[in-house]
């Protein structure tokens, strides 16, 4: 498996695809960070804690935050790393040649997946490190140990999220013979989850519990709860909620309505949660993303292992 892993890693690192994506993510990250640093003064007061984390969550006047850019690009990187993992080997005639070498069949899919995961890790960690470095230089406030911990958790979570999209793309690459089909299927699913899922959740919630300006607090809360519940079918929502809670320690709940009610009741921003509490808060989301990635990989693994070689 190590030989497959090494070859795949080398292929990714020397590929134009990786280069283009890395530059794109880096440019977007740098731009978002620069804008965040410009606006950070307006959101930070003298008693604001976790100033360093604001670099990642503060948006510009017209442009979204680094966090948003990352949540947009991670699925694209994941899909780019996995959509042709198996079917390209099959169509190029490499698969039967490779499998006639003294390796187990699962070494191929495992090696490819691990190499993709390593690339995701390198890309995400280096982008976040660069942004952190840039922010540190401009803002001049060093991160506290808790902020560092939160950033490490953020990197790991982003890797798991990327792994889900890569596993999904690998799954399609096992099921579909053509690389174009597996890429389109992966992108279609990403568009659906990223753009349409929240709209669908909102429509269903409004149909179940209609709200307007005169609606009671109970109705609004219920509407938001339904929206949140349906929205959590999407891994994009799960990732968004989990990263928001990790990078915004003040977030005491993942339900925006409950959060708003708490702030209104307290009359000020809430006390930040310690890291362990934030981690507990996002744990269901983290486990769900891990489970989704594991399911996708397991299905592609079983299908690939059981596939009759004559069709390969």
């Amino acid at each position, binding site marked *: 498996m190590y*030989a497959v892993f090494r*070859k795949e890693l080398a292929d990714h690192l020397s590929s134009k695809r990786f280069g283009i994506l890395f530059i794109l993510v880096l440019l977007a990250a740098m731009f978002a960070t620069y804008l965040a640093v410009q606006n950070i003064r307006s959101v930070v007061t003298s008693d604001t804690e976790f100033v360093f984390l604001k670099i990642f969550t503060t948006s510009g006047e017209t442009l979204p935050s680094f966090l948003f850019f990352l949540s947009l690009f991670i699925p694209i990187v994941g899909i780019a790393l996995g959509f042709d993992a198996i079917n390209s080997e099959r169509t190029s005639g*490499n698969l*039967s*040649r490779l499998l*006639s070498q003294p*390796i187990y069949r699962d070494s191929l899919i495992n090696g490819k997946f691990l190499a993709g995961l390593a690339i995701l890790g390198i890309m995400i960690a280096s982008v976040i490190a660069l942004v952190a470095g840039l922010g540190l230089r401009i803002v001049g406030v060093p991160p506290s140990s808790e902020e560092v911990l939160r950033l490490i958790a953020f990197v790991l979570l982003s890797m798991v999220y990327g792994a889900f999209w890569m596993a999904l793309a690998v799954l399609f690459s096992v099921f579909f013979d053509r690389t174009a089909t597996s890429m389109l299927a992966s992108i279609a699913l990403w568009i659906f989850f990223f753009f349409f899922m929240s709209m669908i959740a909102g429509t269903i919630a409004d149909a179940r519990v209609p709200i307007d300006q005169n609606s009671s607090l109970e109705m609004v809360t219920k509407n938001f709860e339904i929206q949140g519940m349906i929205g959590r079918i999407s891994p994009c929502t799960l990732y968004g909620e989990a990263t928001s809670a990790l990078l915004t320690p003040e977030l005491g709940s993942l339900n925006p309505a409950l959060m708003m009610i708490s702030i209104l009741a307290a009359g000020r921003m809430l006390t930040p949660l310690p890291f362990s509490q934030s981690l507990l808060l996002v744990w269901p989301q983290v486990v769900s993303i891990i489970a989704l990635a594991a399911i996708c990989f397991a299905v592609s693994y079983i299908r690939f292992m059981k596939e009759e070689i*004559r069709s390969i």
Partner: protein
Amino acid sequence: MEQIVETKNLTKTYNGFTAVDRLNLTIREGEIFGFLGPNGAGKTTTILMLLGLTEPSSGTVQVCGYNPTREPLKVKRIVGYLPEKVGFYEDLTARQNLGYTAELNNLLRREAEERISELLATVGLSQVADQEVRELSRGMKQRLGIADVLVKEPKLVFLDEPTSGIDPEGIEDVLKLITSMAKKGITIVFCSHQLHQVQKICSRVGILAKGHLVAEGQIDRLGKRAIGGGRYRIEAQVARLSPKLIDAIRQVKGVIEAQGSGDSLLISCNRDLRGQISKVIVDSGSLLLGMKIEEYSLERIYKKYSKEA
């Protein structure tokens, strides 16, 4: 010769369709075995079972003393396979592609580098060793495939249509390569629809039809069984053909049968007797107008067995 491949009642069924049906096949060490049959006869399925890439539905199989289903890695370490549609990583060079195969076979870097250079020279690709595979012609890729198969220094090699899509000169090169591999002691299973190529290099053949092995053995023996007579058929045009001359030819050592019709003389024999026969004709005072010799055509044998199947 020792048996390197032995199958007993080997059967493979896909969704109710029997691709290989109770196959009893024996391949001997060091021979070039022609594995023939029409498309869909079950040749590739058989090879995949012999390599441990697909599991037999029933029956037993032994390759180089191992069971490929239970010990696939042991089999794949010493058995090479060149698929019909061999593919390489187009963006890697010929040398890098072989390097990856060497790595998959756990060869040490230094040993691998030396062996790869040797193999590239053997298949005549030293000049293009550092060119990307996308720049190579079909024939070159096929030769690279043969080098790829040899990286692991196999005892047994399966070549599935190794000459398909190659120009005549390239075919000659590939056939020479195969023959040289056999001279080095590698057993070769050669699958091809090009029967004249099979006849040229194979010592024995097996004919598969609808999953059944309908014939197996040396070409001349199969020919004798299917068509009759000897391995060679000599046809001579003779002026003044007489029964006495026919009798004289029948007395030549090695002649199995001689028949005359008009000025044509048909002789069946197991070796090339043109010299002796010409002498008998000339000595008898007849005039030899022409002579041609034909070996058993594998095509005729193949058609005969396929038709029977």
